[in-house]
C-alpha cells in the first residue's frame, strides 16, 4: 500500500508498468492482511436435502391466490390523493408568494426525498434557476409546473414498448434480471399472465436455481396463467435451464420465453459472470433475446445506479421494471437511471394482482414523485 502512495505522484508522467508494480505491492500487503485476518471463507454450505421434519406435508396448495379484487390504488387514484396532500416541503414552497432561497431548498429536499440523488436533483433544478434568473418564472406555482415539465421532458424521449418481434420464426426471449428481493419472479408471473391474455403462448424458464423454492414459486405462477414451465435441479447451471427452455419453446412453437434468473448483488463478480453467460447462451440458441428487463424495487436508493450500470454491462439491459411503487417509496432512482444511463423505464408494479403491472407513464410518475 505505501508503495502506491510513493508511486502515485509520478503516475501522470510514466505509464502503465508503474501501476502494476504499485498494485503488486498492494496485493502483497493484502496478502499480509489476509494472513493476519486469517479468516478464509469456508467451503460452500452443503446443499441440503429437501426433507423437513415437522409440519404440514405440502405448502403450495395452501397459499392464498394472488387474484384478489383489484382494490389497490392505481397511479391515477394516487394522484387524486396527491392533489389533496402534497408532500410537506412542496406544500410549504407553494404557500410562499415569491421564489426565495427557501423555495429552492424545499424543492431540492422533495427531490432528494424521492431518491433522485444529489447529482440528478442538481441537473433537474439547473435549467429552472435560469428561468427564474431571467424572470420567465416568478411564482412558486409556476416554478412547480416548470419543474414537472422539465422532468417530463428529460424522461420523454425513449420508446417504452416491450419489444416483441412477430416476424421471428423462433421464440422471442425476455430475460429478467435484478438484485435479490427486487421482485423478478413475481414480475415474470404477472408478465406471463398478461402476455397469455394477449393471445401469445408463453414458456417460463426457472433460471433461479439458487434461492430455495424459487422454481416452485414460478411454477405456481405458470400454472395460474397456463404457461409452459421448465426448471432444472436446485443449484444447477442456470444457463442450461434457459437453454432447455428455449429449445422446448422452439420445438413447440411457443411465442415467448420468459427467463427468470437468480437475484444477485451487482458487485459479486462470479455471479455477474454467470449472468453474462446466461445472456450469451440465450443469444446462441434458436430465437432472439428481444428484451432484458432489470427489476428495481421502488424502495431502492442510490445503489440503483450501480445496479443499472453493472447489470447492463453484464447483459445489455433494454428496460427497467419498477416494482412495489404502491408503497410509500417514490422510486426516484429510476429517473436517474433513465436520464443518466439512457435505459428506458418500461413497466411499473403497483400491487399484488396481475393487472397491477402497468406500462410506465412519465406524466403520472412525475406527478406522483411530489405526492
Amino acid at each position, binding site marked *: 500500500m505505501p508503495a502506491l502512495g510513493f508511486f502515485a505522484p509520478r503516475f501522470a508522467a510514466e505509464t502503465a508498468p508503474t501501476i502494476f508494480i504499485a498494485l*503488486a505491492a498492494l496485493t502483497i500487503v493484502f*496478502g499480509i492482511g489476509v494472513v493476519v*485476518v486469517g479468516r478464509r471463507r469456508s467451503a460452500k454450505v452443503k446443499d441440503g*436435502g429437501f426433507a*423437513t421434519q415437522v409440519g*404440514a406435508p405440502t405448502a403450495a396448495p395452501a397459499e392464498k391466490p*394472488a387474484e384478489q379484487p383489484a382494490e389497490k390504488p392505481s397511479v391515477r387514484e394516487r394522484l387524486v390523493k396527491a392533489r389533496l396532500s402534497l408532500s410537506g416541503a412542496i406544500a410549504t414552497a407553494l404557500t410562499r408568494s415569491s421564489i426565495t432561497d427557501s423555495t429552492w431548498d424545499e424543492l431540492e429536499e422533495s427531490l432528494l426525498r424521492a431518491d433522485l440523488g444529489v447529482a440528478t436533483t442538481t441537473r433537474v433544478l439547473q435549467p429552472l434557476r435560469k428561468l427564474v434568473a431571467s424572470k420567465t418564472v416568478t411564482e412558486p406555482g409556476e416554478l412547480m409546473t416548470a419543474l414537472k415539465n422539465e422532468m417530463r421532458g428529460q424522461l420523454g424521449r425513449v420508446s417504452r414498448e416491450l419489444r416483441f418481434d412477430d416476424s421471428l420464426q423462433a421464440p422471442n426471449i425476455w430475460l429478467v434480471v435484478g438484485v435479490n*428481493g427486487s421482485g423478478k419472479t413475481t414480475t415474470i408471473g404477472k408478465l406471463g399472465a398478461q402476455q397469455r391474455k394477449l393471445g401469445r403462448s408463453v414458456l417460463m424458464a426457472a433460471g433461479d436455481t439458487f434461492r*430455495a423454492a424459487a422454481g416452485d414459486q414460478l411454477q405456481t405462477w405458470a400454472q395460474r396463467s397456463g404457461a409452459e414451465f421448465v426448471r432444472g435441479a436446485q443449484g444447477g447451471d442456470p444457463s442450461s435451464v434457459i437453454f432447455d427452455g428455449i429449445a422446448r419453446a422452439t420445438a413447440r412453437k411457443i411465442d415467448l420465453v420468459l427467463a427468470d434468473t437468480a437475484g444477485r448483488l451487482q458487485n459479486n463478480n462470479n455471479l455477474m459472470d454467470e449472468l453474462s453467460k446466461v445472456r450469451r447462451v440465450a443469444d446462441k440458441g434458436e430465437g432472439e433475446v428481444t428484451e432484458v428487463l432489470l427489476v428495481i424495487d421502488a424502495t*431502492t436508493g442510490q445503489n440503483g445506479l450501480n445496479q443499472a450500470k453493472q447489470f447492463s454491462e453484464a447483459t445489455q439491459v433494454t428496460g427497467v421494471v419498477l416494482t412495489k411503487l404502491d408503497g410509500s417509496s417514490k422510486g426516484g432512482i429510476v429517473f436517474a437511471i433513465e436520464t443518466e444511463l439512457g435505459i428506458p423505464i418500461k413497466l411499473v408494479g403497483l400491487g399484488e394482482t396481475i393487472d397491477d403491472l402497468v406500462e410506465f407513464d412519465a406524466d403520472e410518475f412525475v406527478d406522483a414523485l411530489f405526492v
Partner: protein
Amino acid sequence: MFENLSDRLGGVLRGLRNRGRLTAADVEEVLAEVRTALLEADVNVSVVRDVIDEIRQNSVGATASNALNPGQQVIKIVNDQLVAMLGGETLKITYAGQPPTVVLMAGLQGSGKTTSAAKLAGWFKSQGRQPLLVGADLQRPAAVEQLRVLGAQLNVPVFSQPGDPVATAKLGLAEAKRIGRDVLIVDTAGRLAIDAEMMHQVKEISRAIQPKFTFLVVDAMTGQDAVTVAQAFDSTLSIDGVIMSKLDGDARGGAALSVKHVLGKPIAFASTGEKLDAFEQFHPDRMASRILGMGDMLTLIEQAEKVFEKEKAEAAAAKMLEGEFTLEDFLEQLQQLKKMGSLQGVIGMMPGVPKEMKNAEIPDDQLKRTEAIIFSMTPQERAKPELINGSRRVRISKGSGTTVADVNRLVKQFGEMKKMIKQMGNKGGRGGKGSKVGGINDDLAAALGSRLGPR
C-alpha cells in the same frame, strides 16, 4: 461510482493545510461536502440535517492534533460521530424464563425476511439453542417451501400450516412447547407499511405469540423511505431491533443510520452474504466508514480473501519484508490480482488514491504486457534482475513484443519498490508509521483493525 469522503474533501482541504485550527468558515465548507456524501449514501434528508448539526458543534475550534492533518481530523470527527450514532446501546439477547423465547420477523417484501429468519436460527443454534422456524408467510408462493429448504440445510425443524397466518403462528408456538424447542422464530409475509389490512394482521400475529424480540429486516439498499417504513412498523409492532440485510452489496447503507436515528433501537445483526452463516452481530465502526465511502477497503479485503491463496500470499509477504522478493513472486502476485476483477475496479475501491490515477484509463491488456516481459526472462533473470544487461534487455523486449524502454522501466521500478518495502518492513518492526503516505496507511490499519477487533 460515488466519491468517498476523503476524495470529496480533497479539494476543500487543500486550502486548509498547514493551519493549526479549523475555523467556522472552514467547517461550513467541509460540512457541505459531508452532507453530499451522506445523501449519496442514502441517509435520510432529515437525519442528515441532525448529523450535520452535531458535527458542526463538535468541529468548530477543534485543535488540530499533531498526528492528523485537517483532512484526517475532519474525517475522524465525522466518523466518530457516525459511530456514536450507529452504536450506543446494543441489543442483548436474553432468553425467556419459560421457553420458548419467541422472535417475530417483519419487513417489506423482498427485504430478506425468510433468509434472515433462517440465518438467525443458525445463529441461535451456534449459541447452543434449539430453534424452531415457523413459516407464517402464506402469501408469497413457495415462501414456506423456501424456509423448509433452508431449515433442512441448517438442520432446524420448520413448522407451517396452510390457512390463516395468525393461527399458524399460534400453532407454531404450541408445537415448540410440545417438542421442546427453546427458541421460536416466526417468519411473516412481506407487507407494505401503508397496507392497513396487512399491518393489522401482523399485529394480530404479534398479539397471539407475544414475542420477546421483534426484528425489522431492512435492506441495506433502501433509500430515503427507510425512515417512514421503520416508523410505521415500530408504531404497529414496537420493534426491538433491526437486521440489516444484503450488506454484501456495494450500497453505502445510509438506511442503517436513518433507521437507528429515528427509532433509537439498536441494529442487532447484519446479513453479509448468500451463505447461511454469513450473519453476524452489527459493527457500528465498520458501518460508519462504509457510509462515508471508506468501507470499500473491506470489500477489497474480502475479495482478496476469496481469490488469494493463503500460503502463497504468506510466503510472498515474508520474502518481501526480508527484501528477497523476486520477479517470479511478483508475477505470481500479478496473476492472483487478475482474479480480483478489473484493475480499474480494484483501484477505484482504494481510499486515498489520487483522482488522476483513478480516472486513468488502464486497459487490462497492459497487464498482459507486463506479464509478457517477465515471461520472456530466464529464471535467473527473474531471481536477480541486476543480471539484465543491454543484450538481455534487447532479447527480452523482442521476446515480449515490447520496447527496451518498457523493460528498463519495469526493472527499475521493481528495484525501487523492493527497496521501499524493505524499509517499510524495518520501520514497521520499530513501530514507526509510513509518514510519506499519510492517510492511506492509516486507513488500511483502521480497516484491518475493525475486522480484527470484534472477532
